[in-house]
């Protein structure tokens, strides 16, 4: 066999391989997108018509009635407000705590640096578990408060270490020259280091915001009976579990009564979209940040 023939043969198998790769990735992309589009189409389709089945990615009888119905439910409005509030407060507090701790850990001359590093790292592996934490929250009188959404998880070791490894890359000479100018450590953190840490902070802000927005279990555990502190995810969870096959705890919520004018299925789809949309809207713009942050965390952590 000549070299030429060999090259030809391998390029032919490469072509088959190439086609297989594209087919695989296209199928995976469809499998990821289709469920979202299907839910969107169902949420925009007339609910009596949906029962007939056969809706794919386009609504057959377009209507906004499902959305009208869910927004007439006060629990959803409260949930929306609380979810937005906890996302903002939780993100800001989380950023401040993680960046401050990260800064002290990035200072080679900080005495307690090793101790605090190990002390924080251990929390990633050891946890008291559901019930001891539950009783602690109860003893601290944090049941039925907004604080329970943002305070217990305020310090995340993982976030601290990601920001720290980013700060380690900032030339230390900048801090030293600020120090010669008479700046104290807090000023250096706030004026010199923090502005240079923006890409890492953007990543962590995204992680914090998504975690806050997606949380439902703390509402279920601590604020489940308090209608003024309900969150959007928790409301969706209640509606989803209200079917006959669900756990059944929520079969008779307000929501199911409100829903009588349209089918519960359509209402579920509409709420799913309302809960998901904010994330889908901000996410493409932040993509480059979180990819950077993830790889940074992976290299160091």
């Amino acid at each position, binding site marked *: 066999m000549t070299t030429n023939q060999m090259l030809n043969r391998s390029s032919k198998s490469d072509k088959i*391989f*190439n086609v297989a*790769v594209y087919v695989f*990735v*296209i199928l*995976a*992309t469809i499998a*990821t997108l289709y*469920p*979202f589009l*299907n*839910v969107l189409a*169902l949420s925009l389709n007339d609910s009596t018509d*949906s*029962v*007939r*089945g*056969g809706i794919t990615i386009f609504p057959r009888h377009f209507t906004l009635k499902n959305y009208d119905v869910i927004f007439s439910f006060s629990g959803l409005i409260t949930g929306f407000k609380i979810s937005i509030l906890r996302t903002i407060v939780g993100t800001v507090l989380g950023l401040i*705590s993680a960046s*401050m*701790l990260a800064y002290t850990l990035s200072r080679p*001359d900080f*005495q307690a640096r090793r101790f*605090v590093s190990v002390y924080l790292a251990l*929390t990633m*592996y*050891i*946890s*008291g*578990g*559901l*019930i*001891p*934490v539950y*009783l*602690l929250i109860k003893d601290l009188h944090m049941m039925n408060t907004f604080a329970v959404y943002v*305070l217990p*998880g*305020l*310090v995340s070791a993982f976030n601290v270490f990601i920001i720290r490894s980013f700060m380690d890359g900032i030339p230390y000479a900048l801090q030293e020259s600020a120090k010669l100018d008479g700046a*104290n450590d*807090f000023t250096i953190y706030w004026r010199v280091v923090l502005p240079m840490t923006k890409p890492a902070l953007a990543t962590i802000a995204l992680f914090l915001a*998504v975690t806050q927005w*997606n*949380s*439902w279990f703390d509402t279920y555990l601590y604020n489940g009976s308090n209608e003024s502190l309900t969150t959007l*995810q928790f409301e*969706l*969870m209640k509606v*989803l579990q209200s079917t006959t*096959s669900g756990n059944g705890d929520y079969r008779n919520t307000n929501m199911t009564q409100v829903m009588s004018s349209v089918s519960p*299925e359509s209402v*579920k789809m509409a709420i799913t979209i309302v*809960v*998901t949309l904010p994330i889908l809207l901000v*996410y*493409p713009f932040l993509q480059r940040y979180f990819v950077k942050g*993830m*790889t940074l965390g*992976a290299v160091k952590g």
Partner: protein
Amino acid sequence: MKAVAAPLTNKEKPRKSRFWTTFIRNKYLYMMSLPFVIWVFIFSYYPLWGWTMAFQKYKPGKSFGEQKWVGLEHFRYLFNDDTFYLVLRNTLAMSFMGIIAGFAIPIIFAIMLNEIRHMAFKRFAQTVSYLPHFVSWVVVAGIVTKLLSAENGAVNEFLMWLGIISEPIQFMAKGEWFWGIVTVSDVWKETGWNTIIYLAAIAGIGPELYEAAKVDGASRLRQIWHITLPGIRTTIIILLIMSIGHLISIGFEKQFLLGNNLVGDYSKVLDLYSLEYGLQMSRYSFGTAINMFNSVVSLILLFSANGLFKKFTKESIM
């Protein structure tokens, strides 16, 4: 002896005063970290003290001294409880299925993505694949339930259209489907996200290796086998070992949200067990015993995994 001891004590003094001078010099750093150190103590370390409840007949409202100590009674009860073994089986089954699928599929997908030369399409496919990671399990459970529904669910409609089945399958109502549904949902949600690390590792492989292989006439499959896979070997081992460390602490969100009364025998995992049989029945001590079992076994697994890792790569992940 004296000669050795004397310089030591001489050294001791400045060291002590040096500690305090540094301490004062570090005062802002202490002020910036101490509040959070205390914070972490309260919310992460103090609950460990709650493990004492597992050895008591804990009654809320009583002080620590007034609690009745019962030794290992709760653990004895736990290890004689049939539900515990059912729950442990479910936890391990879903964990193993999750590790195998969640380990192999992202590697394959990352390699596939890396082979795509059309940059715009590659970026689009990546963007789409990360998307489900940012959606909550509540939403994913809702979507999965809808897709698998026997009434107009997309999966049933598709299978019937293909003629594979003649009537809809009750996916969510049959226990034997449950583990698979949880695993597939997890793969759907996290595969794209988990490719990020592998893609970064692949990007770190020197292009000259591929050039040389091309000159030698290696096909693309051969290049993957001999260059890409060995290039990301360390990353693969690290991630595999980390997942072994989390073998039984798989959480409960998926199981809570996707499960229902009909599939309870397959959906209950350790954390759900402690929630339902401990917290919701106010059996705090028993529930804590379950939590403690969970935490201690996880820790042992993590340390053994880390030891294993050290042996293989002479490095440590902890």
